[in-house]
């Protein structure tokens, strides 16, 4: 088990390292960042001075090393637009994003579970998958085909503008959370519901379901056992989705003016606030990777086979 954890940890670090290197390279391939960072109207000398101060005149390899050294310690240069440590800017915005993402995730889990169990119950009754009873899956399919921004726009239009039921922007109060959370969840429900449904019906098709019935179990109990069995793939997708959720916040936070890291990264990119982009991306990537590490570790808890095989699946 320990080796498994270490191995996953190693892979995780490699992934983080690679992702950060990619960010670093993309940013540096666009030229001297000092040019972008210098205040408007800055002279050549000022830019050069700024470049020196931030170390952009040094060889790329050296900068690369420093960058990682600093990133490891959570140190990034000050944000240009906010004039304070870039990481602080990010962490200040964090609660908003986490609230939104967590709400959306919970919402998505509930919906996905309902959709999956609905289908599962149908299968257990002998209904064929894809039958009319599976309309929830149809909705899921629809949701999967609608761009997130368009869902947001529609929700704003219907609930914010037409019906005026709910606030459409800003992070104030629980009401304001509803529409962005739904929009964000819409992106996560389809993969989650599908995977849960598919693995649930897959589990139900496995012989142990028949064993359960042959022992005289009620359908509900059989369904519960099968749901337990389908947790593994579901949690895998959940992990990936939790990461995708962070990516999704980029758009949703923009549609709904939600003051979180997703909106921040767009602003930072637009302002070419190089340190802030770095800090923000580093944070998002790390969060994504950590979530997936947690998911990997959850495998062992969820599936005894993984636990005993010391990993490799």
């Amino acid at each position, binding site marked *: 088990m320990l080796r498994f954890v270490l191995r996953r940890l190693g892979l995780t670090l*490699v*992934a*983080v390292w*690679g*992702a950060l290197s*990619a*960010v670093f390279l*993309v*940013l540096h*391939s*666009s030229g001297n960042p000092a040019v972008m960072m210098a205040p408007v109207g800055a002279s050549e000398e000022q830019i050069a001075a700024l470049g020196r101060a931030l170390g952009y005149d040094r060889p790329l390899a050296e900068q690369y090393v420093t960058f990682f050294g600093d990133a490891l310690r959570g140190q990034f240069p000050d944000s240009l637009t906010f004039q304070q440590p870039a990481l602080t800017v990010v962490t200040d915005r964090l609660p908003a994003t986490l609230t939104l993402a967590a709400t959306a995730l919970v919402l998505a889990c509930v919906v996905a579970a309902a959709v999956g169990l609905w289908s599962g119950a149908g299968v257990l009754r002998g209904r*064929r*998958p*894809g039958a009319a009873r599976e309309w929830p899956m149809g909705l899921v*399919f*629809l949701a*999967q*085909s*609608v*761009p*997130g*921004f*368009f869902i947001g*726009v*529609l929700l*704003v*239009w219907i609930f914010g*503008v037409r019906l005026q039921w709910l606030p459409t922007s800003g992070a104030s109060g629980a009401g304001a959370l509803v529409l962005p959370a739904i929009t964000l969840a819409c*992106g*996560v429900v*389809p*993969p989650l519901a*599908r*995977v849960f449904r*598919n693995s649930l019906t897959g589990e139900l098709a496995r012989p142990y379901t028949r064993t359960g019935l042959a022992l005289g179990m009620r359908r509900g109990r059989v369904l519960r056992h099968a749901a337990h069995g389908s947790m593994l*793939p579901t949690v*895998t*997708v959940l992990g*990936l*989705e939790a*990461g*995708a*959720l*962070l*990516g*999704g916040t*980029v*758009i949703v936070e*923009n*549609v709904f003016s939600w003051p979180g890291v997703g909106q921040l*990264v*767009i602003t930072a*990119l637009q302002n*070419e606030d190089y340190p802030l*982009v770095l800090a923000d*991306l580093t944070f*998002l*990537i790390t969060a*994504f990777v950590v979530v*997936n590490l947690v998911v990997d570790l959850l495998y062992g808890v969820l599936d005894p086979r993984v636990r005993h095989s010391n990993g490799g699946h």
Partner: protein
Amino acid sequence: MKTDTSTRRRRFNAGTAGAVVLGIIVLLTLLAPVLAPHDPLAQDLAHTNAAPGEHGYLLGTDQLGRDLLSRLLYGAQTPLLVGVLAVLCGGVFGTALGLLSGYARGWADQLLSRLADIQLALPAILLALLILTFGGQSTAVLVLVIALTGWPAYFRLVRSRVLALRTSAYVEASRLQGAPAHWIILRDLLPGVRGLIAVTATLDLSRAVLMEAGLSYLGLGAQAPAADWGLMVAEGQGRLLSSWWIAVLPGLCLVALVISANLLGEHLSRRKDTGGEPRRALSRISRTRTRSAA
């Protein structure tokens, strides 16, 4: 097994519906110059924000008085072009690497797999934003960015299938027959992943279209005054209060395009030979990225 046949038939219909709608969209897009009643860029400042039917504009006009119907007809050009090219690039690249990596194994395989991991660790939308902001915007870059975020799906699927196939009895039989590696890859392995690739590509097309739309929506894809569905939603969303059609109609077109591609992909992936693998994998890989893109 009759059960299978009948369900397949029903799905087949959904799949056909997808194919038909997709075909219609492609056809309309190709015929746009013939069908469009107006120049998609021509402005009629006297009749801005006209409601559908008003002033002889069948679907109304936008803020600049441009005919929405004409713009919608032209509006799929960029998504389709970018989508198809990106799918081609990502598909060919990912498949080739997947085949080689899966068959040859070794350090190159390790390296590529890590690369794909890393690629997955970067939420696609962020990567795209990064490259488009700092690398400049152009259709070529857009295609590359979308292809770049798409290749791991092909790579992983193909590689894992190849890993399973390479020790399969029929590949071993080919080796016993003395077949060289390239022959085995092309004749034994590639046909084995063909179905997989077809499905992945169809589903990837919807991902690519969604991503193009998402980036255009954020202002990093198609540029004004071009008629592009994603961009049109962005332009029109400020007008939802008074002129909903400007944003809603292109959005619906986008949904129709994506749904049809998805339906087709679903149908293909349910066919026996692919065993639903791509759907599962895509829901792990691309779907999540599509989401983040859109």
